């Protein structure tokens, strides 16, 4: 997982949270807000929108903030990735269905337990027309792996990288690493044109610098503070996947302004930060909404403060929580009640196996039944009611308000008392690093996601050494199973281990999962083709956008 924008959704709304909420209400011509909306029926769910019928000249896309830099080794978040996924290609390629295939590397083979060999394509050219060489690839990988680089954690197990042939790079790792190839479809696998990067020096990534990549679109112009334009790359090496559009303009604004830009037809699309934003857009006859898999889940994360260190209290609260109510009230029905702390976007392989294992999980009902409540009360009785009330942290934004209230309600139903403490939103992210802040609350709610499509990438967070395992959960054999899963490159075997980890984690309710927030795309009805899954962060989605009519 990369620099997360998790801290940003609330940071961004900041001072004008009231304004945003207000607009959502009036843009929908419905002062009642999202709570009043019925469950949507016209939102399709799947990895992509229907295929484009033909090319289009150009379109305008909204993002929620101006990118900070296009040197993704310095930093990257949603804004940077949404744009650069179209500009920069990687050794591997993430597909809309969130699986990974070879790309700039025509193959990637494990030749031993600890060596992986990349055979590079010979026909790739960068945007300035120069051909990609193995030297460029090696240099790029070393740049990503350098200490302090944003992607260096992806290379943590790498002990050596070398050019072992005209078109071949061999990577040696400390241990077998099942995630490594997936990581090469992310920003850690971007191949840069060394000549261009070095010519720019420290300026690389700033508004005046050109891109140094190959890809269906290239960076045309970044007018700082105003907009960014990509244009179709001339003579793109992969002609079958050339861009259908000649130009894309990116503009940025807050959620409310994005809603207005889409309804007025000033912009043609946006990947929405929160499904809640889609509420008012559903009323527009010019805009279509689609959703697809992501790994994002809102959870209530238990801290080491005390009351929730007893697993039975966590289980009881999980059983009593009204997830359906949260999905409806906080997200207008566009989020899904969820039983695990990581979304279905993580099922990047063996999807049916993961799906049926998920169905079989218990302990996190959509809405608590009488039976669930009875079970929960019994657990509380066994554990004993904590001397002090359970404290849940809020930040005053609408999603957390709903989740905190739901937790208080759940506690009341099963004979516990819970209260809400409000923490300034600017400080909320510090829960992960500041033990004294965690001492103020038993639970804090947050949206968590991982950038790789593998549940193992999440469940390593339950290892006894993990930073976010605040309740010191130690599952029997769990740590070893994590290590084994990370080293298992066979998909079926890894899925089996991942499901065992999932079962142990969810049985112990290390965090209380609440709702899965799918990737949500809003697009003008006359264009189509973009993926609706979270793949837009790494897959060249804009190249697929075209006219919906022939």
């Amino acid at each position, binding site marked *: *997982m*990369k*620099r*997360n924008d998790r*801290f*940003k959704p609330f*940071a*961004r709304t*900041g*001072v*004008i949270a*009231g*304004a945003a909420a*207000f*607009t959502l209400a*009036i*843009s929908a011509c419905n002062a009642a807000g999202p709570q009043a909306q019925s469950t949507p029926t016209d939102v399709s769910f799947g990895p992509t929108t229907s295929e484009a019928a033909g090319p289009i000249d150009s379109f305008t896309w909204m993002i929620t*903030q*101006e990118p*900070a*830099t296009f*040197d993704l080794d310095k*930093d990257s*978040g949603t804004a940077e990735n949404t744009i650069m996924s179209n500009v920069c290609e990687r050794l591997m390629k993430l597909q809309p269905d969130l699986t990974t295939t070879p790309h700039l590397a025509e193959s990637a083979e494990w030749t031993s337990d600890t060596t992986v060999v990349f055979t590079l394509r010979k026909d790739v050219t960068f945007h300035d027309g120069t051909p990609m060489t193995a030297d460029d690839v090696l240099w790029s990988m070393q740049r990503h792996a350098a200490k302090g680089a944003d992607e260096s*954690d992806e290379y943590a197990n790498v002990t050596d990288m070398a050019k072992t042939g005209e078109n071949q790079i061999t990577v040696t790792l400390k241990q077998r690493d099942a995630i490594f190839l997936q990581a090469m479809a992310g920003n850690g696998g971007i191949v840069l044109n060394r000549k261009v990067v070095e010519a720019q020096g420290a300026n690389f*990534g*700033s*508004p005046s610098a050109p891109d140094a990549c190959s890809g269906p679109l290239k960076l045309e112009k970044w*007018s*700082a*503070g*105003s*907009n960014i334009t990509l244009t179709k790359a001339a003579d793109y090496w992969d002609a079958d996947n050339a861009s259908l559009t000649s130009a894309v303009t990116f*503009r*940025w*604004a*807050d959620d*409310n*302004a*994005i809603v*207005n*830009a889409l*309804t*007025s*037809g*000033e912009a043609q699309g946006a990947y929405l930060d929160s499904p809640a934003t889609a509420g008012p857009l559903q009323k527009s006859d010019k805009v279509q909404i689609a959703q697809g898999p992501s790994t994002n889940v809102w959870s209530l994360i238990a801290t080491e403060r005390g009351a929730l260190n007893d697993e039975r209290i966590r289980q009881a609260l999980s059983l009593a929580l009204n997830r359906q109510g949260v999905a409806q009230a906080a997200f207008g029905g566009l989020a899904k009640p969820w039983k695990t702390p990581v979304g279905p976007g993580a099922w990047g392989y063996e999807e049916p196996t993961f799906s049926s294992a998920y169905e079989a999980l218990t302990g996190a009902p959509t809405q608590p039944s009488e039976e669930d409540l009875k079970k929960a009360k019994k657990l509380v009785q066994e554990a004993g009611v904590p001397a002090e009330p359970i404290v849940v942290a809020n930040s005053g934004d609408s999603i957390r308000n709903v989740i905190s209230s739901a937790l208080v309600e759940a506690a009341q139903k099963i004979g516990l008392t819970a209260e809400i403490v409000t*923490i*300034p*939103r*600017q*400080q909320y*992210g*510090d829960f*992960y*690093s*500041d033990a004294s802040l965690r001492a103020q609350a038993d639970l804090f709610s947050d949206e968590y996601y991982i950038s790789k499509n593998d549940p193992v990438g999440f469940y390593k*967070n339950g290892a006894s050494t*993990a*930073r*976010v395992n605040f309740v010191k959960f130690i599952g029997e054999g769990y740590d070893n199973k994590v290590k084994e899963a990370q080293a298992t490159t066979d998909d079926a075997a890894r899925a089996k281990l991942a499901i065992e980890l999932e079962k142990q984690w969810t049985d112990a309710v290390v965090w209380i999962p609440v709702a899965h927030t799918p990737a949500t795309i809003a697009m003008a009805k006359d264009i189509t083709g973009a993926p609706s899954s979270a793949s837009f962060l790494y897959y060249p989605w804009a190249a697929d956008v075209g006219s919906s009519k022939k």
Partner: protein
Amino acid sequence: MIRAATRIAGMILTLVVSSFVIFAAMYAAPGDPVTFLIGNPENMTPERVAEVKAQYNLDQPLIVQYGLWASQAFVGNLGTSFQYHQPVAELMATRLPATLALVAMASVLFIVAGVGLGILSALRQGKRTDSTITAATTLAASVPSFVIGLLLVSIFSVQLGWFPVSGAGEGFLDRLHHLALPAVALAVGAVAIVSRVTRQSMVEQISMDHVEAARSFGLAPAKLIRRHVLRNAWGPILTMVALVVASMLAGTVVVESVFGISGVGKLLVDAINTHDFPVVQAVLLYMVITYMVVTTLVDLVHPLLDPRIKAKDKKS
């Protein structure tokens, strides 16, 4: 000469004190920049936290950090943004034009409308026009600018499609078109204040003896107003206009957010939320300086408009 020197010394002192207060306030504010700089909670090991703190001098005592910053700022280096990895001066340079254009347009609007309505109100003192203007401006002043902004957007942009929804536009005419609604939203509250001050100041002047005297000599009403009333009433009006403009330079944030304009106000709020200290420092410093410049300008212009002040200055 001595007056100018004390004045400059005073300004420098104000800058030093205010910049230190801003600096200290940022540190007292809840939240830690390290959280943003590291980002990924899984990477928040004590070692990494210490490393990042050292890299950005965040492990130094407050006064040392202030010293490092001030000595650099003194030679014109405002530092590098934590978030954008760009020199803060460059960031400011790309954001300022939108904000300045917005404030300039709003100022023209509120000065013309505010002074105009104020004069009209004063001349129709006690009549229906007067009470209508007072009531309307009171209402306008009580509605927050973001609410006005949202209403304007939903009517004139979304429903009628006459104006763009967001952005600041490029090129002169496009910019005028883009900033028209935000400027109106920003100006509405100020119209009320300025019209009120104009009215009050005029009413006071109208009741003065010399005005009465001039009127009894049979001076034409228009001339009377121009020469005797308005001329003497300018002082408080100008002071109020200047204060409003100065506060607008610092207060565009809400309107910028509603209209999706990447201006200085938006930059400041984002920087506060991400604890981007160098940017917060620079933007607030810009605000302090513009405030000082505007108020100093008013002090300089005042005597030119009102000879009585000049005369008083000479005597003292």
